[in-house]
C-alpha cells in the first residue's frame, strides 16, 4: 500500500527526522494560508501516486502566497498522468548543496532488507540502478537485529558523503520506522545537504506491506484513501482481488497465475482485458455474484470470460455459483465460460442449460469472447 508524500513526511517528522515546514491543502485558499504562514518562497506539490511527478508539472514553485494559490488552483481537481490531484503539499523552498538517495527496501532474491545509499540522489533509484549501478551502495540488514552504530560508521566511511554523524542518525531512525511500520519501501529522495551544513528531507516515500495491515491499524485507516479508482475501492471493500485495466473484456478466474494467463490469452486473441479478478479457491455463489457486480460497475465491459480450473474445487459447484449469481445480477453482456478439472462434465452439463457460452480451453474462450465483442460493434 502506498501512502502520500505528506503522510510519509508526517511519520518521519514524528520520529524527529528533519522535514521541511509545510502542510497539506485541499483548496487554493488553504494553500494561500499555509504559504503565508511559512512566509517565504514555497513549493506546491501534487499528492498523487505517480513517478516523475516533477517532469509532469506536478511540482510548482511559488514566491508569494498568491502564487501558491494559483499553483494549487492549477493542480487541484485535475489529472496528473491520469490520476486526480485531490491534495497539494505546500512546503518551504530549500536550497541543496548536494542531493543524496537514502532508502530501505526488500531484496526478494537475497531474502533480506537492504539499505541503499547514493551520493547521486534526485533521480529514481530504479533508473539509477540501470544507468549507473556503481553509484548505489548497499548494506544488507541482519533479519534478527537492528543496525549497530559501528556498522553504519564503517559503511559511511567508504562513501563521499557529508555530515556522517547526522546521516547515521537518519539511517538509524529510518530503519526503526521501516521495521516498526512493516514497510516494504522507505525512501528519502532527495535527502538534501543544505548550505547551513544540515540534512533536510525533500521528498519521501513509504510503502506498507498489505499483508501486515492487520497489525498496523493506523495505516489500515489510510488504506481506503490510497485507492484512487472507485471500482477498485468497492472491490477492496468486498474483499475481492480486483485490478482495473483499460480494456473491455471482463476476466474472472481462480488463482492469480491462471487469471494473468487468461488476460494474456485474451490479448493474444486481439482483445483487451478490462480487469484482473481472482475468485480464489471455493468460488462460492455469493462471491461469484459480488465479483460479477464489481466487473459490471465498469461501463466499458462488453463481455466476460470466466476461466476456472477446478482442483480441489469442484466444477459443478462453481457452475452452480455462476448460474445462481447470473440469475440475481442482471447481465446484458455475453459470458463465455470454460470449466476444467474436477467434475468438469457435471459442470458443463449445468452450463449447457443456460445461455452462457461454453468453451473447452482457455485459448478457445479467449478467441470466442473477442469474436463476440467484435460482433456487438
Amino acid at each position, binding site marked *: 500500500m502506498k501512502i502520500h508524500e505528506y503522510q510519509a513526511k508526517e511519520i518521519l517528522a514524528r520520529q524527529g527526522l528533519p522535514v521541511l515546514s509545510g502542510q497539506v491543502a485541499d483548496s487554493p485558499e488553504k494553500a494561500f494560508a499555509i504559504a503565508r504562514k511559512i512566509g517565504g518562497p514555497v513549493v506546491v506539490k501534487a499528492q498523487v501516486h505517480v*513517478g516523475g511527478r516533477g517532469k509532469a508539472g506536478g511540482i510548482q514553485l511559488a514566491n508569494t502566497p498568491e502564487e501558491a494559490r494559483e499553483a494549487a488552483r492549477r493542480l487541484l481537481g485535475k489529472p496528473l498522468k491520469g490520476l486526480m490531484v485531490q491534495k497539494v503539499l505546500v512546503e518551504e523552498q530549500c536550497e541543496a548543496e548536494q542531493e543524496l538517495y537514502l532508502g530501505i527496501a*526488500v531484496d*526478494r*532474491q537475497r*531474502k*533480506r*532488507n537492504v539499505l541503499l545509499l547514493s551520493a547521486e540522489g534526485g533521480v*529514481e*533509484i*530504479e*533508473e539509477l*540502478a*540501470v544507468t549507473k549501478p556503481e553509484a548505489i551502495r548497499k548494506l544488507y540488514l541482519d*533479519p*534478527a537485529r537492528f543496525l549497530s552504530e559501528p556498522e553504519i560508521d564503517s559503511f559511511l566511511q567508504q562513501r563521499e558523503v557529508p555530515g556522517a554523524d547526522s546521516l547515521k542518525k537518519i539511517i538509524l531512525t529510518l530503519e526503526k520506522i521501516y*521495521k516498526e511500520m*512493516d514497510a*516494504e519501501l522507505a525512501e528519502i529522495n532527495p535527502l538534501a545537504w543544505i548550505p547551513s551544513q544540515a540534512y533536510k528531507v525533500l521528498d519521501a516515500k513509504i510503502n506498507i*506491506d*498489505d*499483508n*501486515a495491515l*492487520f*497489525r498496523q491499524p493506523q495505516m489500515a485507516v489510510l488504506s481506503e484513501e490510497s485507492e484512487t479508482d472507485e471500482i477498485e475501492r468497492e472491490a477492496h471493500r468486498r474483499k475481492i*482481488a480486483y*485490478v482495473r*485495466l483499460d480494456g473491455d473484456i471482463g476476466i474472472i*478466474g*481462480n*488463482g*492469480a*497465475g*491462471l*487469471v*494473468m*494467463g487468461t*488476460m*494474456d*490469452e*485474451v*490479448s*493474444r486473441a486481439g482483445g483487451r*482485458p478490462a480487469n*484482473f479478478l*481472482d475468485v480464489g479457491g471455493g468460488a462460492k455463489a455469493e462471491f461469484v455474484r459480488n465479483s460479477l457486480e464489481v466487473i459490471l460497475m465498469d461501463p466499458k465491459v462488453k463481455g466476460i470470460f470466466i476461466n476456472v*480450473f*477446478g*482442483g*480441489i474445487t469442484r466444477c459443478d459447484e462453481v457452475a452452480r455459483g455462476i448460474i445462481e449469481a447470473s440469475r440475481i445480477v442482471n447481465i446484458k453482456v455475453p459470458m463465455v465460460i470454460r470449466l*476444467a*478439472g*474436477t467434475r468438469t462434465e457435471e459442470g458443463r452439463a449445468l452450463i449447457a442449460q443456460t445461455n452462457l457460452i461454453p468453451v473447452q*480451453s*482457455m*485459448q478457445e474462450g479467449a478467441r470466442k469472447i473477442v469474436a463476440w465483442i467484435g460482433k456487438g460493434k
Partner: protein
Amino acid sequence: MGILANRETRVIVQGITGREGTFHAEQMIAYGTKIVGGVTPGKKGETVCGVPVFNHVREAVAATRAAASVLLVPARFAKDAICEAVEAGLQLIVAITEGIPTQDMIFAAHVAQTKGVRLIGPNGPGMVTVGETKLGILPGHIFLKGSIGLASRSGTLTYEIVNELTQVGLGQSTCVGLGGDPILGTQFIEILPLFEKDPQTEAVILLGEIGGAAEEEAASYIKKMTKPVIGFISGRTAPAGKRMGHAGAIISGGQGTADSKMKAWRDAGVFVAETTREIPALVQKALAKKAAAANKCRGTRFQTGSGIG
C-alpha cells in the same frame, strides 16, 4: 524417490484442527502421504483424521518421528509456526498460508536457512512426489507418474498445465509450487539443482510470473544444466505498479516484466512457450532433442570402440 519427499516421509500438519487443515489432511492421506500427527496449540490429546494432535511441534516429533510439516495456520501465526518447526528439527516445511507479512517471512526464511531446513512456500499449493506423497493442497488425481519435473510460482496455473501434460501422457516426477509471495523459502535457482540431480527427472518445466527477478536469476544456472528446461511466464499484459493478486506479482520501476524474464530464459536456452497450450509440445520437442543428442554420443562411442558396458 522424489527430490524433497517420498512415500516414507513422515509428515505432520500444523493447524490440523482448522477447517482447511482437517480437509487437506484427509486429502493427503487419501493420496498416500504418511500423515503421522498434527499440531494445534491447546488441542493436545484430540484425534483428527485418525492421527494424534499435539500442542507443540517438538512433542509431535518426539512421539511420531516426523520429518516434514505442512503448514496450514493463519497468517499472523505463521512466523512462529515456521520457527517452531525449524527448532524441532524438521527437515522440510511446506507453507501453504497466504498473507504472511513480508518482514515475518524475511525472519522465518532466515531461521530456516541458518538451520539448513528446506522451506517451500508460503502462499503456494505445496508439492507432490507423483505416485508417492503429497504435501499440500494440490488435487492429487490430475498427476501421472513420469519424468517431467515442474516448479511454479502459481497454483491453479500449475494444475492447468499438469492436467494437459497428463492428458497427452507426459507424466511427472515432482511438482512444486514455490508460492506467490515476494519472499519465498525456495526459489527457482534453489530447486533446479535438485531436479538436475534427480535420476527420475528428464526435463523441467518452470512456470514463472511477473515481479521480482527469480526467473532472471535462475537463467544463470539453467545455462549449466544438462537437462532441458521449458518455461512459461504469466502476466505479459499486466500493467506496471499494480499487484496482480499474488503479493509478489508486481512490476516495479520497470523491473520484473514478462519480457525481461522471457528474454533471460531464451538466452539461457530455455524452450519458452508463448501460450500454455504449447507447453506439452515443447516438452516433447525438448525430450526428442535430448534423445537425439544422447544417441549421437552413444554412436560416437561405438565408432571409437570405447563403448561402455
